[in-house]
């Protein structure tokens, strides 16, 4: 039986997480189909067909799928879902909204956020906010799962030529209605909840030089923080301080630039998933907690890093 991956897209472009989800599907073995459900989503279907490893692209192009309302889409997927061994979607807000509803319609469990494939019916997934990893086996005839994109290598976007098949069945539950959307707020995220934080220390030398970090942060969608030394030196405002007496942060990526790593600073960021330190002093204590340390002049390294991203 084939595997069905549900594409994440905005009716114009296919989202990259779909390629990672296809990467997870490839580990399962078997033919892979990709469902593109939307409205006027021909461009997405064309992108989907170009992915090597996808043997068939199913396109459901109808007004009722324009905003991917779960009520309508779940009926569509559940309608033919039993014909597949696996139904996979990226574990973004769209997949998380849709897949449990599909699973319940099929009377099967759903596995959330899988980060590893052990066998076609056994997967690894984080629980307790990633403080433990569970290995879970599905006992159902169909495996319905959402896939954490960052855990799987993506398939290439180009090089294939899958068949494209249109689906004409439309399902309209008629109970929910799209009202509006407010996307792409470009504001820098809040320090306390940002996925990535770029922090500067006394090594920056002045408040003006924090502009370097801001450029880098904007490129990464990161928040900007500072060590107490930088705050005390008057480079930046108090509310940017990361540390024992400032904000405690635990982002996925913390980039410490020109920060030596006083204990009080470490107390505020040591729970970050990945820590990068850039400092010209190879003996700086920050390197002891850093996953990746770069001994370099920050005024050269930071612009170079920003360009390399």
């Amino acid at each position, binding site marked *: 039986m084939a595997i069905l991956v549900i594409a994440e897209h905005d009716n114009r472009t296919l989202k990259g997480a779909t390629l990672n989800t296809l990467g997870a599907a490839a580990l399962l073995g078997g033919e892979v189909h990709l469902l593109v459900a939307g409205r006027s989503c021909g461009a997405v279907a064309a992108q989907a067909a170009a992915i090597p490893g996808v043997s068939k692209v199913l396109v459901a192009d109808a007004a009722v799928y324009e905003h991917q309302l779960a009520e309508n889409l779940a009926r569509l997927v559940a309608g033919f879902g039993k014909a597949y061994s696996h139904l996979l979607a990226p574990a973004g807000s769209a997949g998380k909204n849709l897949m449990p509803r599909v699973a319940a319609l099929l009377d099967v469990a759903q596995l959330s956020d899988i980060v590893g494939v052990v066998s076609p019916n056994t997967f690894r997934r984080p629980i307790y906010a990633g403080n433990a990893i569970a290995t879970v086996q599905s006992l159902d005839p169909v495996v319905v799962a959402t896939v954490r994109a960052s855990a799987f290598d993506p398939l290439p976007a180009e090089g294939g030529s899958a068949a494209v098949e249109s689906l004409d069945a439309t399902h309209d539950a008629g109970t929910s209605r799209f009202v509006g959307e407010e996307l792409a707020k470009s504001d820098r995220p809040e320090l306390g909840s940002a996925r990535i934080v770029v922090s500067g220390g006394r090594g920056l030398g002045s408040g003006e030089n924090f502009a370097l970090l801001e450029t880098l942060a904007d490129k990464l969608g990161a928040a900007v923080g500072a060590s107490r030394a930088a705050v005390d030196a008057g480079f930046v405002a108090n509310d940017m301080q990361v540390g024992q007496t400032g904000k405690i942060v635990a982002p996925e990526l913390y980039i410490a630039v020109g920060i030596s790593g006083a*204990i*009080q600073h470490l*107390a505020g960021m*040591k729970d970050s998933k990945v820590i990068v330190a850039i400092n010209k002093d190879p003996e700086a204590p920050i390197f002891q907690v850093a996953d990746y340390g770069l001994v370099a002049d920050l005024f050269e390294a930071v612009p170079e890093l920003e360009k390399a991203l």
Partner: protein
Amino acid sequence: MSDYVHPYRDTEFVLGELVELERFCAEAGLHDVNGELVSAILAEAGRLGSEVLAPLNAVGDTQGARLGERGVEETPGFAAAYRQFQESGWPSLTAAEAWGGQNLPNVVGTAINEIWHSANMAFALCPMLTQGAIEALAHHGSAELQAAYLPKLVSGEWTGTMNLTEPDAGSDLAAIKARAVPNGDHYLISGQKIFITWGDHQMTDNVVHLVLARLPDAPAGVKGISLFVVPKFLLDAQGRPGARNDAQCVSLEHKLGIHGSPTCVMSFGEKEGAVGYLVGEPHKGLACMFTMMNHARQSVGLQGLSISERAYQQARQYARERLQGTRKDGSRFPIIEFPDVRRMLLQMKASIEAMRALALVAAAEVDRTAHAPDPAACARHQGRVDLLTPIVKGWLTELAQEVTSLGVQIHGGMGFIEETGAARHYRDARILTIYEGTTGIQALDLVGRKTLLNRGELLGDLLDEIGETVARLESAGPFAAQARALGEALAAGREARRLLLEGAEADAALAGSVSVNFLMLFGYLCGGWLMARSALRAQALLETGGDRAFLEAKLVTARFYCEQLLPRTQALLAAIRAGSGSIMALSDEQF
């Protein structure tokens, strides 16, 4: 994650196993109160403490209260926190239902107050003082005064203060000079009061001062002091705050710690005279204050526990995280692996658990007095309250000095750095042995009123009860060493009592000379007694299942207490035995 988490497990152990709260409530007819309810209340108070009050502790320290144009401006954030605290009904915990209170036992209130003081002692002083004002009015106020003020104080809409001390009248209240002159249906108060905790702030729309002052015809000394209610804003016909009274904060003290708690110089009657209303009878003001004294002193003792717990949690976390040792393979290990750091942590832990046990057991005696089935039982429990109160106040706060100091020590050099926060607890703790009667005053109370005055009867009862615990330890198998240690400490207690009773008459300086050592000896002995009882209960619970990690730690902590803290009773006894000789031998000039 908060840097303070209420140690609910230990509190529930003490309430359940030492206080036997459920049995007490059932016997006292408090059928609404049980362990499940108390757990729910502790959990919610713990949340508010951790999430709202604890984060403001450092803010209060660095941005203390200041005097502004409209009076005292409290630390930023305190007003919002107070509103949350007040709207959640916490001020009403133990007050009578008639005034809108929840009528919960004092021991439950004490367990909850531990949380507030751990989370933010400077903040928690405000509701603590209010509680004192509530008690004064509830016991001595006229029906009219009670109706006007108690519901608002119990709900926390208004806060209360205690105005006793004057520049010339500290421990010696006989020297009070503030005056009260009759003026129609009220009195006009004038004079200056100092060290008035939370004497003014902007968190509520009224502040109710209880003020000691002298009537024109008052006899000299303590028998001429009367108690008055002086509101910051006079009440209008509807009982709402109206005209500003002639009572204000004229300056704030600069202190070693608790910067978030405004310590006011209050000036009454600078203009036309502050309107005040007599509480109780004329010239009986000090007696009114004595009603509150046991509670106030136990509350300060509790603060010693609270600040120690906070210091311990901080030191423990640091010791687990601070890498400062290198293994043979080059990997580094945290300082908690060093034996001496473990000793310090365990000394903090053992002290704290003994303090908590004593604070709650003493608080429960207040409930047992209130709910005693007959006058004899009432007298017995009141005697125990009277005896334990100076020990709770004196010993817990003295121990807090050592515990918070160890907290700094564990941090090494970082402990001396303010930003680390360990030093804050050390500074904040320092007031505790001073206010609400210094350790010296507590010790005089213990040797005088609580021992010599009743020929040692109260102490004798306590010592006999400790003797029963020694006997149970002896017959319980694994506790032979602890039975011996507690037995020796008990013997030291008996000997100290004998030396005092037999020597005090012949040597007028003896009681005062030995008093603090006497108090500390009985503190360590009471702590050892309750830790031994904890160990017996923990052993019994282990045999029927239960939380192994907690119960086994309790056994070890009790053992450590017996091995390392209880022997201090012997040194104290030696000092007591030395009597007053050298202490009184030097002339004043020779110091």
